[in-house]
C-alpha cells in the first residue's frame, strides 16, 4: 500500500473501481494518471493505464480518446497537475469538449513532493514553501479551477464533492458514475473535483483532516454541482449534425 493513513486517494480509487465494475467497462477503460501520488493508481486499478508527464494528462487523454472514441477514458490528477503545470492542457481539452472525464483530487498541497504550496492552497494555510501561511499579496488567491472550467462551452458536467463521511463518499461515487455515463453518451468534457484529506502533509490526524475540509476548505471550494448541461443536452454528435 503506497498511500498514507487517512489519505483520500485509496477511497476514490476504490470508488472508481466500483463504478467501472458496475458499468461493466473494465475491458474498455483507459486510465491516465500523471505525476504525484495519483500516478500510483496503476497499482490498484486493473485496467489499461498510461502514465503522463506532470500536467500533461489531458493532452495524453485527448490523443487516446480521439483514436478510441468508444472507450471509457479518464485522467486522475492532483491539484498541482490541474491548476499549475497542466492548466493549459486542462482548460483547452475542456474547451474542445473532449469526451473524457477528469477526476481532480484537490488536497490543497503538493503531496508526493512533501507538502509544498499548490495553486489551491488556502489563504493563510502553512505549507513547506509558504511557512508563514499563504498570503494573497505574495502568492495570489487560491485558483477555483473547476469554476473556471465550468464557464467553457465544451464542459457539460462538473461537480465538487468530498470523502469526509460515509454520505460524502456515496455522493462522490454517484458523481463519478454520472461523469462516466455522460462521457459514454459523448456529451462533452466531464470533471469531478474531490476535496481530499492529506493528513501527512497537513500535519493532522485523519479525523482532524476531515473536519478541516468541512470547516475550512469548503468555504473556499463550495460543494455541489457547478455545471450540469446533461439533462436534455443534444450531445456533440447531434450538435455537429446541424
Amino acid at each position: 500500500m503506497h498511500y498514507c493513513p487517512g489519505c483520500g486517494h485509496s477511497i476514490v480509487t476504490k470508488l472508481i473501481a466500483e463504478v467501472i465494475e458496475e458499468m461493466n467497462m473494465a475491458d474498455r477503460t483507459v486510465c491516465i494518471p500523471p505525476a504525484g501520488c495519483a500516478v500510483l493508481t496503476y497499482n490498484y486499478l486493473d485496467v489499461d493505464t498510461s502514465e503522463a508527464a506532470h500536467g500533461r494528462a489531458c493532452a495524453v487523454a485527448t490523443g487516446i480518446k480521439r483514436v478510441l472514441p468508444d472507450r471509457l477514458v479518464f485522467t486522475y490528477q492532483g491539484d498541482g497537475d490541474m491548476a499549475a503545470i497542466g492548466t493549459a492542457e486542462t482548460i483547452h481539452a475542456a474547451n474542445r469538449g473532449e469526451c473524457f472525464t477528469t477526476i481532480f483530487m484537490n488536497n490543497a498541497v503538493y503531496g508526493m513532493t512533501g507538502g509544498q504550496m499548490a495553486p489551491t492552497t488556502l489563504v493563510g494555510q502553512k505549507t513547506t514553501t509558504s511557512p508563514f501561511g499563504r498570503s494573497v499579496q505574495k502568492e495570489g488567491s487560491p485558483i477555483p479551477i473547476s469554476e473556471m472550467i465550468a464557464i467553457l462551452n465544451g464542459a457539460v458536467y462538473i461537480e465538487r464533492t468530498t470523502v469526509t463521511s460515509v454520505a460524502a463518499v456515496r455522493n462522490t461515487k454517484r458523481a463519478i458514475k454520472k461523469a462516466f455515463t455522460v462521457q459514454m453518451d459523448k456529451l462533452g468534457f466531464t470533471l469531478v473535483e474531490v476535496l481530499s484529506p492529506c493528513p501527512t502533509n497537513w500535519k493532522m490526524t485523519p479525523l482532524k483532516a476531515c473536519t478541516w475540509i468541512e470547516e475550512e476548505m469548503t468555504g473556499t471550494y463550495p460543494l455541489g454541482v457547478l455545471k450540469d448541461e446533461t439533462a436534455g443536452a443534444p450531445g456533440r454528435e447531434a450538435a455537429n449534425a446541424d
Partner: protein
Amino acid sequence: MNAPDAACAPSYVPRPPSRYIVSQKSNLKLMRGNTVVGEAAVRAGCTCYFGYPITPQNQLPEYMSRRLTEVEGGIFIQSESELSAINMVLGASVAGARVMTSSSSPGISLKQEGISFLCGCELPAVIVNMVRGGPGLGNISPAQSDYFQATRGGGHGDYRVVVLAPASCQEVADLTMEAFDIADYYRNPVLILADGMLGQMMEPVTFENYSPREIPEKDYILDGAKNRPSRINRSLILNPQMMEEHNWKLVRKYKTIERNETRYEEFMMDDAKLAVVAYGTAARIAKGAVKRARSDGMRVGLIRPISLWPFPSDIIRKRASKTDLFFVFEMSTGQMVDDVRLALEGRSEVYFHGRPGGIISTPVEVLRIISRQYYQKELGK
C-alpha cells in the same frame, strides 16, 4: 482502427488534395518540401497529426488539416502548445495509431519533455524539425544548429532518437515514409531533421519508392483489456534494479538500431584526398562545390550522413586510410564536426567551415575553401 468520433468529424465538405501539380507524362508531382512530408506521412498510414504553428513549417499542419479529413479515422488537432501536441502524440501512439507532429527549432525545444517520455515508454512517433536560426527566437532562415539537440537528446535521461536528414524533396518523401516503419519496428521516436530551405523549396517527387516493412504486432497498445490482462504504459520505475535493467534494455535496442539503420551517401570518394562531410541542405551546396573542384582536377569527394543518429562513423573511419583531410561543412558554428572527430579518432586531419543561421554559404564559397585547403596541404601531390 475505429471509425472517427462524430465529435471529431469535419463540419465542411473536404476538398481533394490540390496543393501539388501532377505531371501528365509521369507520376511525378511538383510539391513543396513541407507538404511532401504530409503527403508521405498519409501514404505511410499516418492517421493522426497534432501540432502548433511555427514558421517555416506551417504548410505541413495546414496540409494535414485538410488531408486527414480524407483518411478513415483521420485526426487533426491544432493544439494549444507544443507541449500539448507532443503529449497528444504520446496518447495516440499508445492507443495504436501512426502519429506525427512537426515544428521548428524553438517549438522542438518545448517538445523535448514529451520526446524523453516517448523514449522512456518505448512508443513510436514521427517528429519533424524544419530547423530555423537560433538560439532563442532567432529567425526563420534555414540553419543546422539543432544537431546537438537532435542527436544528443534535448530531453532528460539516457535515450536516443533516430535522426534522418534528407537533402532533397524526394528524399523527404522517402525518409518520411520509412520513418514510420522504423519508429514502429523499434518502438522509438524518429526525427526528420531538415531545415527551412528544404521545407520551402519545390521539386518533383514520387511516392512510389516506399515498400512497407513487416512490423511486429503492437502488443503494448492500450485499448481496454478485452480478452487479455490489463497493461500499464509507464517510464516510472521505482525499483532501482528494474530501473537499471530498463535502461540497459534501451541500450541494447540502440545498438541494434546502430547496426541496422546507419545510412550515408558517398560521392566521388574512391580516390578522394579531401572528403567534404556535410548533411542535408549543406550537402547539396557541398556537392556543387565538389563537382566544380573535380572539374578543376582536385581529388575531392563527399560523404553525406543521411542518418545523423546512428552516425556513419565506420565509413568515415574507413576512408581515413586514403583521405588526408576531412572538411566538415555545416550551417552552424560546428556541431556535427564533433562526431566526425570522434569517428576518426585522430586518424586524419579535420577542418571545419560553417556559418550560423541567417546566411547560407554558396557552392563558390565552399569551393574557395576546398581549393585553399587542398593546395595548402599539397594534397594534389
